[in-house]
């Protein structure tokens, strides 16, 4: 995709602007103080490295088109270890390759942002939109007892806001944050009304960073604890941190759920369509609402209201997100699933038809 504005115009951008999701996330990352980007080409996220390749240099940051996803995520590890805000982006098969590095980031408690513009799978799959990386995103993906914060925007504007939040949360908790969008949200162009308040970054002081041991004891960044009991101790510390995140960082949008008898549970691009589903079905007299988790981990397990007759789970997958909805519902009402896989997309009408047939 061509860059549609002069570079200098983008740099000074203040007012409403039309941008693709991918480019908007890249610009938002720059404005959030990200000064290191390392990535590898893969569709449908190629606009991000292309954008970063000139924009990062404009702001004096580091950009490398790495030789592989493995190299890219480990360059992120290195940059993050020095206290600089760092990110990488990819799409499903590439994010699979990054899992080793994400586990190391979590183990070494390094803040970093990883963007996954999901596409069809498994394997090479295709380049259509999908939400089939839910398990990988929320269940670890790599080895060991660790968690990544996972945020899932449903508009380009929200992607901008959550990009900044991702960097803030990563720094606050010294933890990797995964920003999860899909091929459609990455490619679609939408107006951005506001870049939000993005000052010169409210930096958390990174007293642990590698900056050269001048006038202090040396710092080390590692996830290896070979001495008896030390790894267990480290894991306990991580789990305490994860509990804190579960307590403080749950984000969910409750859309027309106050008087709803049935609710749809959906996130990301599916949720966006389901808002229209709710509007249309309500105009036909159906008492329906939408529960839209914004943080997929920590998951809003308390969000499904009591007294609901049925929950419809909608996802571009064969049914992954539904597992968390089941935990949230905990047997209080029946749950139905409607999904599409393999890069196929559904229309508002198809979703309505699927729900109406099963109310």
């Amino acid at each position, binding site marked *: 995709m061509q860059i549609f504005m002069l570079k200098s115009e983008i740099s000074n951008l203040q007012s409403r602007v039309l941008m693709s999701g991918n480019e908007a996330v890249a610009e938002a990352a720059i404005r959030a103080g990200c000064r290191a980007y390392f990535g590898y080409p893969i569709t449908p996220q190629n606009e991000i490295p292309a954008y970063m390749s000139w924009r990062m240099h404009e702001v004096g940051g580091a950009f490398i088109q790495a030789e592989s996803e493995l190299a890219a995520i480990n360059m992120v590890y290195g940059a993050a*270890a020095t206290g600089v805000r760092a990110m990488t982006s990819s799409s499903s098969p590439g994010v699979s390759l990054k899992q080793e590095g994400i586990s190391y980031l979590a183990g070494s408690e390094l803040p970093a942002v990883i963007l996954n513009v999901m596409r069809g799978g498994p394997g090479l799959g295709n380049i259509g939109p999908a939400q089939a990386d839910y398990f990988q995103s929320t269940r670890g993906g790599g080895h060991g007892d660790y968690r990544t914060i996972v945020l899932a925007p449903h508009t380009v504007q929200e992607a901008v806001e959550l990009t900044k939040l991702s960097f803030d949360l990563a720094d606050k908790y010294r933890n990797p944050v995964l920003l999860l969008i899909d091929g459609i949200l990455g490619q679609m162009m939408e107006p951005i009304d506001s870049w939000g308040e993005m000052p010169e970054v409210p930096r958390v002081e990174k007293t642990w960073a590698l900056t*050269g041991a001048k006038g202090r004891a040396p710092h080390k960044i590692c996830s290896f604890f070979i001495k008896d009991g030390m790894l267990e101790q480290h894991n306990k510390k991580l789990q305490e941190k994860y509990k804190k995140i579960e307590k403080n960082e749950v984000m969910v949008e409750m859309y027309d759920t106050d008087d709803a008898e049935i609710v749809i549970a959906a996130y990301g691009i599916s949720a966006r369509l389901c808002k229209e589903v709710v509007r249309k079905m309500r105009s036909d007299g159906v008492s329906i609402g939408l529960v839209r988790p914004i943080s997929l981990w920590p998951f809003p397990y308390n969000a499904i209201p009591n007294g609901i007759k049925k929950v419809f789970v909608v996802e571009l997958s064969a049914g992954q997100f539904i597992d968390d909805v089941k935990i949230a519902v905990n047997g209080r009402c029946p749950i139905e699933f409607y999904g599409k896989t393999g890069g196929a997309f559904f229309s508002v009408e198809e979703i309505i038809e699927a729900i109406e047939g099963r109310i």
Partner: protein
Amino acid sequence: MNSQIQNPKSQQGIFCRPESLKDVPTHYCAGCGHGIAHRILAEVIDELGIRESTVGVAPVGCAVIAYEYWNFDTSEAAHGRTPSVATGIKRVRPELTVFTYQGDGDLAAIGTAEMIHTANRGENITTIFVNNAVYGMTGGQMAPTTLLGQKTATSLKGRHELREGHPIKVCELLSGFSGVKYLARCALNKPNRILEAKKAIKKAFNVQIEGKGFSLVELLSPCPTYWGCSPEDSLKWVDDNMVPYFPLGEIKNI
């Protein structure tokens, strides 16, 4: 070049521990070359006066906890990703002197792609490559640099070129890349060679300090434990088996 000596005892001509090495016992086997490699590396860092602006990246392998011994900022890296971690550090903090310390498995097997591309980009970092022709940490398996005929835990009959291929000559492999500015192969089995190795390490660091590009020093290093010989015999083993295949000297200096 700033060559101030950090350690006051050294100034008095007394042989003592470099400031860049912590005063702790290491876990290395008797006769292992890592201790020597750590020592000369630390001496070079002291002599260049860069201890407070150096970051070392430790590998996965026998030197996995080298950061417990080095008295400057350090990072771990996943197996073979060592050059990528160093790249990330150096690109955002170019004022730091950044080196990787890697074994033959880390550098020439699982991390081959990272090594080649880091070298080819001419990343302004230095790599200390410890070649002992075997995987030590995991129990003496065949390495990419295991010599023909050498018996290991996974080549019980000895490495054969038709089965396992020939050992990789890392310096020669990297020498064709324009971004690579300094390559030297030294051995840690004799005092004069150890001094040569130290000189080579210093040259490599200076290449980085001058901003020229990628530098690497390969150290042929004894591993008596997995060569199945005494520490004394392992020094001879380097001469008899390694040096003929891995020729010593500066391979590149531009």
